[in-house]
C-alpha cells in the first residue's frame, strides 16, 4: 500500500510535474465539457479542423518569440469566425467552409514555421505537445481563460442546448441564434489553444471528443453527459500523466490511449448488455425448432 502511495506521490515532488498534472486535469475537464456540445452538435470535423487552423498563429508566436496562447487564440478565433461568415447565407455548406479554412491555415502555418532552422523540432512540439514545459504563466492563462469558457457555458447553457437540439426553436423563441452559434465555435477555439501544450494539435481531437462520446453512451440527459464527460476527462488527464511517468510514453499519447481504452470498454459493455436484453435469458424457444 505504501509502495503504491509512494509511486503516486513521487512525481509530485517535482515542480514541473505538479504543473503538468494540474494542467492536464484542467484541460481534461474543460475539453470534455466543451467537447460534449461538439459531440451532440456533430462538430467533430470542425474540432479537428480548428485544431489544425491555429497553427499559423502558434507558428508566428514561435518564430517571433511571442505568446503561444495569444497567437493560437487569434488564429483559432479568426478561423471560427471566417467559417461562420462563409456559411451565413448557406451558399457554402459548413463542412466545405471548414475544409477550405482548415487546409489554408494549416498550409500557412507550415510555411511560416519552415522559415526557422529548427523546423522539425518546433513542429514536433506543436503537433504532439510539450506538457513538461508548462510554466506558471501558462497555468495562469489556463485557469483564467478556462474559467471564462466554463462561465460562458454556465451562463448560456440552456440557450446552447436549445440551439444545438433545434435551431429553429431558438429562432422562434427569439434567442440570439447567430451569436450562440459563433460563441460555441469560439469556445471550441479557446479550448483547443489552451489544450495545445498538453497533447498537441495532432491528438487534440481525442481530448475533446472521446470523454464526451463515452459519456453519451452512459447517459440520456445532456446535463449528466456534460458532468460525466468532465470527470472522465479529468480522470484521463491524471491516469495519462501517471502512465506517461511510469512508462516514458509521451503524455499526449498516454492520455489518448487511456481515453480510447475507456471508450472501447464502455462501448463493448453496452453492446453486450443490449445483446443480452435482445436475446433475453427467459425467452422460450419455438416448439419444433
Amino acid at each position, binding site marked *: 500500500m505504501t509502495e503504491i502511495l509512494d509511486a503516486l506521490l513521487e512525481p509530485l515532488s517535482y515542480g514541473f510535474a505538479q504543473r503538468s498534472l494540474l494542467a492536464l486535469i484542467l484541460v481534461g475537464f474543460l475539453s470534455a465539457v466543451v467537447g460534449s456540445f461538439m459531440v451532440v452538435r456533430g462538430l467533430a470535423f470542425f474540432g479537428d479542423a480548428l485544431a489544425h487552423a491555429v497553427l499559423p498563429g502558434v507558428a508566428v508566436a514561435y518564430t517571433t518569440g511571442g505568446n503561444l496562447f495569444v497567437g493560437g487564440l487569434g488564429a483559432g478565433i479568426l478561423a471560427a469566425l471566417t467559417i461562420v461568415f462563409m456559411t451565413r*447565407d*448557406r451558399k457554402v455548406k459548413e463542412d466545405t467552409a471548414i475544409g477550405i479554412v482548415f487546409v489554408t491555415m494549416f498550409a500557412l502555418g507550415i510555411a511560416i514555421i519552415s522559415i526557422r532552422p529548427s523546423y522539425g523540432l518546433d513542429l514536433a512540439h506543436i503537433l504532439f505537445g510539450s506538457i513538461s514545459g508548462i510554466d506558471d504563466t501558462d497555468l495562469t492563462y489556463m485557469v483564467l481563460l478556462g474559467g471564462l469558457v466554463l462561465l460562458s457555458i454556465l451562463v448560456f*447553457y*440552456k*440557450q446552447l*442546448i436549445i440551439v444545438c*437540439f433545434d435551431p*429553429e*426553436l431558438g429562432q422562434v423563441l427569439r434567442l440570439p441564434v447567430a451569436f450562440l452559434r459563433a460563441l460555441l465555435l469560439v469556445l471550441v477555439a479557446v479550448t483547443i489553444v489552451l489544450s495545445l501544450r498538453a497533447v498537441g494539435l495532432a491528438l487534440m481531437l481525442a481530448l475533446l471528443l472521446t470523454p464526451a462520446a463515452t459519456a453519451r453512451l452512459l447517459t440520456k440527459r445532456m446535463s449528466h*453527459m456534460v458532468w460525466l464527460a468532465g470527470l472522465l476527462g479529468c480522470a484521463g488527464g491524471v491516469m495519462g500523466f501517471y502512465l506517461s511517468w511510469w512508462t516514458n510514453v509521451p503524455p499526449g499519447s498516454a492520455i489518448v490511449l487511456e481515453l480510447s481504452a475507456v471508450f472501447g470498454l464502455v462501448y463493448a459493455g453496452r453492446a453486450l448488455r443490449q445483446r443480452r436484453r435482445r436475446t433475453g435469458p427467459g425467452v422460450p424457444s419455438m416448439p419444433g425448432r
Partner: protein
Amino acid sequence: MTRSNNAPETPALMVRELGAGYPWAPRTIDQLNFTLCCGECVALVGPNGAGKTTLLKSIAGLIPIDTGEVLVHGIDCRHREVQVGFIPQRNAVDQNFPVTAHDVVMMGLARGNSWLPWWPGMVRQRALELLELFQLGEIAHQAFGELSAGQQQRILIARALAQESDILLLDEPFSGVDVAAAAEITSALETLREQGITMLMATHDMVRAARDFDRLLLLRETVVADGPPEEVLRPDLLHQAYGDSASVLPLKDGVLHVANPREHAGLHDD
C-alpha cells in the same frame, strides 16, 4: 404575445400581400392574403413546393418576409414580443440528442427563463402539467429519441403550447406516422381545439383535412381557394393547384379523395 382571451370573431392572424422565400432561392409564396379568427382551425393543403412550409415559417419568423405583412393580434409578427408556436416535423429535430420528453417541453418555456443554467421549479412543474395534458406524464423522463413517432409529435405540440401563444402552426404532423400514431396526434389536436387555440396545419392528407377541419386553404404560390372543404376540393380548383396530376373522387362514405388520374381505375374497382 401571450395567450389572450379574445372573442371568436376577432382576427388572430392576418396575412396581407405576403411574399416570402429562402434568401438563397426564388420566392416561394407571393401575394398571399387570408385571415384566421381566434380559435379557428384551418388546414393548409397544396402540392409539394406550393409554399406551405414557407408560409408557416415566415409567420413564425424563421424565413424573412420580402413583401406584405403578417399581423398577430394586430402586431407585426417580426416584433420581438410576438410569439407564435411552430411545431416542426418530428424528423426536423435531432433524434439522437440526449434530452428527455420533460427537457424538450421545458425548452418551450425558455423565454424569460433562459439566463439561469438550471430550470426553475415553476418551469419544471408547468412542463409536467403540459405532458399530463397530452397523456405523456408516464414517459416524461424517457429519452426523446427512444419514443414512438406519435409520442414525439405530441411532445413537440406540448412544447409549442408551453410558449403561451394562442396561435400554433403545425408543419405536416401526420407525415410518416402509422395509424396508431395518427390517432394519438388527432387526439392532441382535439385537446388544442378544446383549449381555444388558433391552428394552421400544413398537410398532404386531403381526407383528414376534409374530415377534421371546417376550413381549408388551397395553396400554390398564392391562395388558390379558401373556404369549407366542399368548396375548396373542387376538381377545377384542384386542377389549378395540382395541375393534371390530381383529381377528386367522391367515395361511398362521402369522404373526398385526391389522386393521380392513373390511380382511378384501381380505386373504382374496390
